[in-house]
């Protein structure tokens, strides 16, 4: 089974991921932090516009590589979250056709999940310098998530 967790950025997923993995599936953490820090930045939002587009697309490639590894896996993140965050903060940086291509790529990934666990509530994530814990932003991303998951064709 390939399970992805989708939730607002403020929600801690550790417990949910462990429960879904049941001690058998491997748990994969969001690669965003390492990717952004490898370029010397703290968060995705402060990365310059063009590089940010490149990094956001690289996240898809990293996700695909994890999906290719096979076996049971629980992702503590979901491609739909990346799309929702992209739409909220970086959408205007992409041309219409480039967005279509990015969205199609995301949809390919989302269709490879056996299930998406959509968390609407949970313990609050602790501050770690990467995830943005602003409540109004989290609410807006959470509102986008069901729509994005549906458009991506993910199985909830």
């Amino acid at each position, binding site marked *: 089974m390939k399970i992805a967790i989708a939730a607002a950025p403020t929600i801690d997923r550790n417990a949910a991921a462990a429960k879904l993995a049941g001690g058998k599936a491997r748990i994969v953490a969001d690669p965003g932090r390492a990717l952004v820090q490898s370029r010397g930045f703290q968060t995705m939002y402060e990365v310059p516009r063009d590089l940010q587009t490149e990094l956001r697309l690289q996240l898809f490639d990293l996700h695909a590589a994890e999906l290719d590894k096979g076996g049971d896996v629980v992702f503590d993140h979901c491609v739909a979250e990346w799309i929702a965050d992209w739409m909220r903060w970086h959408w205007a940086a992409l041309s219409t056709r480039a967005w279509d291509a990015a969205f199609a790529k995301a949809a390919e990934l989302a269709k490879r999940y056996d299930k998406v666990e959509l968390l609407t509530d949970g313990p609050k994530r602790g501050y770690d310098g990467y995830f943005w814990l*602003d409540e109004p*932003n989290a609410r807006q991303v959470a509102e986008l998530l069901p729509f994005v998951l549906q458009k991506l064709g993910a199985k909830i």
Partner: protein
Amino acid sequence: MKFDETAATDHAIAKAYVSFLVERRLDDDDAARAEFCRTAQVAPKLLYNNPHVNQIASIFAKRTNMERVANMTVREYLRYHYYYVHQAYKYGIPEMQQTWLGHHIIKSPEDCWVYQELLYATKPDIVLELGLMFGGASVFLANILKLMGHGEVLGIDITFKNLKHDPRDAGNITYLEGDSGSARILDEVARRCEGKKVFVIADSDHEKEHVLKEIRLYSKFVNVGSYYVVEDSLNDLMGYHPVPNEGPLAAAKQFLTETDAFIPDLRLPEKYLMTLSPHGFLKRVK
């Protein structure tokens, strides 16, 4: 010398020239240009009229810092200051960090001078510092107060883990560890500040709601004629936040809509122009 055939010609020549300067450890001057043109078989006019050559020259030239700064925009200078001096400790060049008598201090020289002038003018009994980090600014403020012959620093931070010195060394510093929004800290500050002339410098979490909460809680301690300084409001203007949120400037502006007891002092504190706290020096007028 080989050019990148996929790049535009002017770009390829500029890149090749930069490589030439770096590999030979040369500065950009007429002799270096002549040598490059001879070895790379580039017509000198193509180099001298290259649209990138001025930017190359601004980096690869023996110039004083002032000469280089003269060609920067103010925004470029501020960005330089922020990353190479103000935040140098964070990016691996601690020797570039501003210091006061050896203590790392995360402010700007101009703002420190402004503090010296404002403290002398207002003669506070207590300088209340919200957010300490290394504690270097506390030492600076305490030393100025000591030179004036009056006043002490009361510093508050949620954690002392970043402090680099023992506050007892300065003599006139007291630190309180805890959440500035907690009743415990607030009560202690109220007890210590009762009947005193207080100057507040807020430099803790820079997220708007936190800054606004602190102003609402601590501005009451400021006496008429003194200041509540909302530090690093420049963050809002320069986009320094790692996330796209509002910061100190937005908080200061909102607070000013809630009260007529404070006004933004844009004259004296901003007279040197280069401040990290534009619109952040809030003066109590009643």
